[in-house]
């Protein structure tokens, strides 16, 4: 089998005495959308933070296309083609769409020493990208992010990741607080991203959203990966829910009757 795009091996992360990740192994193939599921505190966010360089790992290895990398901070991860999009936090609301798209990588008009941004080029690229990610309304690229809707903001963040050739786009709860139409929009951007050669990790509480787009589901529970090869086409939502909670239907009923989960 071909080497996966991202391979995380025997990852451990402890916060003091709390083990957030125990010996987790996880991979994402080229052109694959992986759904990462798990209850609160299962370790999804920690795993993603390790992969996006936001927190250092305690032990374990990360390989990108078979090459071992160390991700000390978020810039390292971006340089390796890993882009993380958090709900609402990836953009500067005061800046325009174009200025956000190119933040940190603004094209410069010659002569270089004047340090002048090429705003025409930025706006042209931004206008194209907005069309590509399916924003049909005619929004000028000079519009500040603050006056866009939640779905449009997600679209801009995804467009940015696509434009800068990120190999892996991590979407952390991208459909939270979005309306029905906007959610469909975001899901279709994700499909577009895969079709144009990107891989995605999709984290969401709403299992139905995950089922609509992903190729493979990985489930985490209490710091461990408990299933990493669930095919959404051959598995039902109820079965996945059972894996997430780690309980059978009867146990769930008993737990609800007792008012607390039984372990």
């Amino acid at each position, binding site marked *: 089998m071909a080497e996966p795009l991202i391979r995380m091996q025997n990852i451990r992360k402890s916060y003091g005495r709390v083990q957030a990740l125990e010996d987790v192994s996880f991979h994402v193939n080229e052109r694959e959308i992986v759904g990462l599921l798990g209850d609160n505190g299962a370790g999804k966010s920690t795993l993603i933070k390790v992969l996006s360089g936001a927190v250092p790992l305690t032990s374990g290895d990360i390989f990108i296309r078979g090459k071992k990398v160390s991700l000390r901070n978020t810039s390292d991860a971006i340089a390796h083609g890993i882009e*993380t999009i958090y709900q609402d936090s990836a*953009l500067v*609301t*005061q800046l325009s769409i174009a200025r956000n798209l190119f*933040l*940190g*990588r*603004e094209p410069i008009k010659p002569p270089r020493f004047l*340090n002048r941004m090429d705003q025409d080029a930025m706006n042209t690229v931004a206008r194209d990208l907005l069309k590509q990610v399916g924003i049909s309304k005619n929004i000028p690229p000079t519009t500040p992010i603050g006056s866009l809707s939640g779905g449009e903001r997600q679209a801009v963040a995804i467009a940015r990741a696509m434009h800068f050739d990120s190999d892996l786009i991590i979407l952390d709860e991208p459909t939270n607080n979005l309306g029905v139409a906007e959610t469909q929009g975001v899901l279709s951007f994700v499909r577009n991203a895969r079709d144009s050669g990107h891989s995605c990790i999709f984290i969401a509480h709403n299992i139905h959203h995950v089922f609509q787009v992903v190729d493979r589901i990985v489930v985490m529970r209490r710091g461990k990966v408990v299933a990493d090869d669930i095919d959404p086409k051959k598995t039902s939502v109820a079965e996945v829910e059972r894996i997430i909670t780690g309980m059978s239907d009867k146990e769930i009923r008993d737990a609800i009757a007792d008012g607390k989960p039984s372990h």
Partner: protein
Amino acid sequence: MEHRSLIQRLIARPEFGPLVLLVIEIAVFWSINHDFLSPQNISNTLAFTVELGLIALAMTLLMTSGEFDLSVGSLFGFSPVLMWTLFNSGLTSLEVGFVAALLVAAFIGLVNGWFVTQLKIPSFLVTLGMLLVVRGTALFVTDGFPQRTWSAEGSWLAEALVGDFFIGPFRIYMSLFWFIAAAIALGYVLTQSRTGNWIQAAGGNPNAARARGVNVSGVKIGLFVLSSLMASLAGVISSLRTSAANPNSGTGYELEVIAMVVIGGTALTGGRGTIIGTVLGILILRVMRNGIVLIGVPGLAYNIFIGAIILGMMALHSWLERRHQAGT
């Protein structure tokens, strides 16, 4: 949205409110006392306006990045004291004293920036502490007395900074050109350069900026240094023009400067700043101070008007902001 008329676009700009206020202010003062627009009065008002203005320009960038600097008033007093002390003691020439004062100011800015970005202490507390340290130092080294100032006539440094000449009936100081140059340069940096994009991002959403590889700490430290340098330069200019170096001068300027910046439309919380607005804010406050004296209001009542303007402009900005958010 792109088809709006020129007038509508002008009204939508954040600088429109301050511009209207300035025009009204000038019209009212002029109609009460025609001497308000006499060449002599304009020249006098401009001379000191640009000195405070230099600090306000740097403060605009710093506040856009989400921080502010309370130590500028102290530096305004301290830097000329340091320069004249070095010169009077015979240790250095005036020029070397000037450079030494700037270097010390840059170091103070560096310390401010380091405390804020590395120790993560709010800039309010850091620069409040620095305000006291710098003012205390100025008072201590001078025993609280003004420094002996040699009349700076003839020194090329004094000529370059505050040399004066007449254009028609207007007496113009060189400092006006330094102010204009600084306003153009910093306006360019803020709106056209990629550094400006980083400054706005650092104030708007520092985590997002950091995630994109923007060196937020570096940007902020640089702006603290700039703010200290401008305060120091303004202090030296003022001292050369008035031939005075008083360790107490500049007291309270930090708040007046911050008021100028926010009246102009820069957000106190960062992310949004405008140099044109700041220039208008500077003029609004200085014209007010000059005008109310000319029309016979007791000078001591000045603060009442300044306070009222700040409150009024803040209300206007917040109303415009809400209307802007709702309208899109």
